[in-house]
């Protein structure tokens, strides 16, 4: 009787593990990571994002729920960036076209979140981001909320102003912008990782520079296929 009880308990535990196994995400990150060319699995891939609430370029709320239900590629940009950010957005447009040409089952939604909500309002982002692809979503909002998301994703940025002699001054994290910074201009040094987020809101993988679009497309196909199985 006692033995039968333990067998039943053991079976129940095994069934519970089997049922929860797919929910634990993927299982063997190490071997999956080894197959990737352009991406790396995030070290905290199972950790959910903190709650955030931002505004998309149509003025609608963009929060954790906005990343649920479909695959997303998230990148940080700012519109006063003449070089890196437009290159990244152009690469994203090319990546989307490649996945479409390959008839990929999954084509992630591209979400561009600004590092610079003071200058990049939703209206500004709408015009800017749509230039690269009409389907891209620009996101702005409260700077503290953006900073939380930046931290959660392991991104980083710093604002740089110039003094009268033209010498660059890097502002500290929470240091306010000088009064004349908007008029005189400032640049932002930043990381340029592109994040792949699964339909359950899991920040699965990051694509550091260089962003070779064909390698990114292959990795996205591999990652989404494994996770959709």
């Amino acid at each position, binding site marked *: 009787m006692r033995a039968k009880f333990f067998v039943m308990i053991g079976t129940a535990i095994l069934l519970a593990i089997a049922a929860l196994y797919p929910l634990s995400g993927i299982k063997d990150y190490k071997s999956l990571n080894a197959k990737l060319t352009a991406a790396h699995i995030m070290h905290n891939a199972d950790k959910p994002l903190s709650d955030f609430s931002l505004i998309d370029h149509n003025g609608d709320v963009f929060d954790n729920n906005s990343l649920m239900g479909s695959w997303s590629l998230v990148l940080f940009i700012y*519109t*006063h*960036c*003449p*070089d*890196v950010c*437009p*290159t*990244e957005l*152009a*690469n994203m*447009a*090319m990546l989307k076209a490649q996945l479409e040409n390959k008839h990929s089952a999954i084509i992630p939604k591209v979400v561009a979140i600004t590092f610079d909500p003071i*200058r990049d309002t939703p209206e*500004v982002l709408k*015009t*800017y*981001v*749509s*230039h*690269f692809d009409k389907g891209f979503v620009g996101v702005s909002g409260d700077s503290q909320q953006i900073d939380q998301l930046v931290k959660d994703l392991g991104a*980083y940025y710093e604002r*740089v102003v*110039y003094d009268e002699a*033209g010498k*660059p001054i890097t502002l500290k994290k929470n240091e306010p912008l000088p009064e004349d910074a908007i008029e005189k*201009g400032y*640049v*932002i*040094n*930043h*990381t*340029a*990782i592109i994040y792949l987020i699964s339909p359950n809101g899991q920040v699965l993988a990051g694509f*550091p*520079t*260089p*962003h*070779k*679009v064909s390698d990114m497309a292959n990795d996205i196909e591999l990652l989404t296929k494994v996770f959709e199985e």
Partner: protein
Amino acid sequence: MLKNMRVALFTLIALVSFTTVNAMTHAYQKSHDKQQLSITDPWIRSAPINAPALGLFMQITNNSDRDLRLTSAHVEGYQRVELHRTIDSNGMMKMVRQEFMPIPAHSKLHLKPGSWHIMLIKPDRVPSEGERVMVSLRFNDGSAQVIRASVRKGRMMIKHHSMD
């Protein structure tokens, strides 16, 4: 007799003049072919109509025996034009303003996305794809060049540690 001498003199003067002009033209072409600095493929990346900053790129070849520097650029219709370089510092993309761009003797400086570039700031109007934009470049040897940059799409990979 006098008439014959006049014709002969006129022919001689014409011949000397022609030879001189021909030699001068040849010398000019030769020097023109061997310009100290030559600019190839100048282009501006097409940008959204509200883009506050645009990137200008090109290749500058220094054919001379001395190191030269691009010291400034000017384009009408922009609040400022600055020389910049993007540097990938351990994954941090840094935008660094430059006082000049070095073009060593007998070598080439490639201004390209993710590397050296000229930043066109606050345009009166963002040029459309296909337009050609007049650009003036000044160098430290006192020379200047006026070129036309075409506006086009630029989809290029950002590379690690772009140094050239």
